């Protein structure tokens, strides 16, 4: 594991506890278009690769995230190298899980679709959910729609339940 220079005396474990969550979040986002590459594996590889390195605590954040960025690029390149050069179509590999990516994309599209259906079935519920998802608070929603906070809360609660049902189960909102 990496460690910091003797002047700061921070153990590898402390370094891991301090940075591992943010590194994992960083790697997960960097690798999001490649769900077949596991971010936990990448974090493990990163820590093993940094095993012999020693650096000052002040620069640990910069060094670790630079290494994480390079590792993510390497992993993506390795995947890209497996594409057919002429067509750009990816070779079929049983280890990859492109269907997972498709399912996720479909569900996100379905969320928008279900919200449209909610617009038609329960416009007030749809309006309040759209308002919250674009960052408006209850006070703005209540003011604009001239409704009480209790009513707004109930509409949001019912609207979310309908949307979840529609996205997960395929039912009408």
């Amino acid at each position: 594991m990496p460690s910091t220079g003797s002047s700061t005396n921070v153990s590898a474990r402390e370094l891991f506890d301090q940075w591992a969550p943010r590194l994992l979040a960083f790697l997960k986002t960097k690798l999001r278009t490649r769900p077949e590459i596991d971010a936990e594996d990448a974090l493990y590889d990163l820590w093993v690769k940094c095993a012999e390195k020693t650096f000052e605590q002040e620069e640990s954040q910069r060094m670790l995230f630079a290494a994480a960025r390079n590792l993510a690029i390497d992993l993506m390149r390795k995947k890209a190298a497996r594409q057919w050069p002429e067509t750009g179509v990816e070779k079929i590999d049983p280890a990859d899980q492109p269907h997972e990516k498709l399912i996720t994309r479909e569900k996100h599209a379905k969320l928008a679709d279900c919200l449209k259906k909610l617009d038609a079935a329960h416009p007030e519920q749809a309006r309040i959910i759209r308002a919250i998802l674009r960052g408006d608070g209850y006070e703005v929603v209540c003011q604009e729609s001239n409704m009480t906070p209790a009513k707004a809360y109930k509409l949001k609660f019912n609207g979310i339940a309908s949307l979840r049902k529609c996205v997960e189960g395929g039912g009408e909102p």
Partner: protein
Amino acid sequence: MSIIALDMPSERDERISWLEKQLIGLELGGLTSQLEAVNGPGDSSQTLDTILGDKQTGVLAGGFSELNDKQIAQLLTHPRLLLELQECVCERGGAYWSRIELTAGMRQAVDRVRRRLDVQAVVPERTVIARIGPWLGWVVAAAIAIVVAVNWQSSRNDPSWGWLRPDALASSASTDRGAYLNRLAGSANEWFQVRPTDRTAAAARISELRRGCTRLLLSEHPGLPPADKDWLLERCQVWAGKLDQQLAFLESGMEASQVIAQVDETVNALIKALRLRATTNVS
């Protein structure tokens, strides 16, 4: 896959805290594409600089509470910028972002990687044996076995985790109080590294945590001002009482998993309290 966007709270303070958690969480990619599906990608001329303006440094140091409602709304309606912001926070964000409570999923994921690294740490010994040949290898293996046995025995007598770890409470009058309280929180977090499944193992683990409390109660904490020290002792007595009670539940027949879940709550609460205290100014 969960529709995480639908979990977004509608009250400002809760939403800020939730968004911060997502920004350093594992589901930001999902959240941004869900927001994009509903709100659209947003105006491409908007950048982090135009939205955050002179608050960018403030966000890196102190989180989203630096932003006004309009700025938060602009981030939600330009979801891709949340991904950019995550990169900035990871690479340049200050200690504030390390104090944010982790989601259960993140904690478990980090624990899994930590366990794999702990296991990997013994591999070089095996490599040495393979290189020096079978005969000498056996001698070395026997020597390693003795060392491991001795270490195992001593670790059974004095578990080296949490507040029982020899350096866990090391401090001097010049120690930074915030760093010390955060270190105590970090040590307490080691509770989650081992997940006992039976009642005997659970009792041993909880007893070790409880002994750590005793050590905390009896220590001088020279790095803490009197107000912090009083607070810590008062809180620690409460935590110790809860652990005693949970141990009693276990001894009276309650399932290990139920008691462990209760201890998890206690430990999470005490970590949160320590981290919050670390950010609070005391006179």
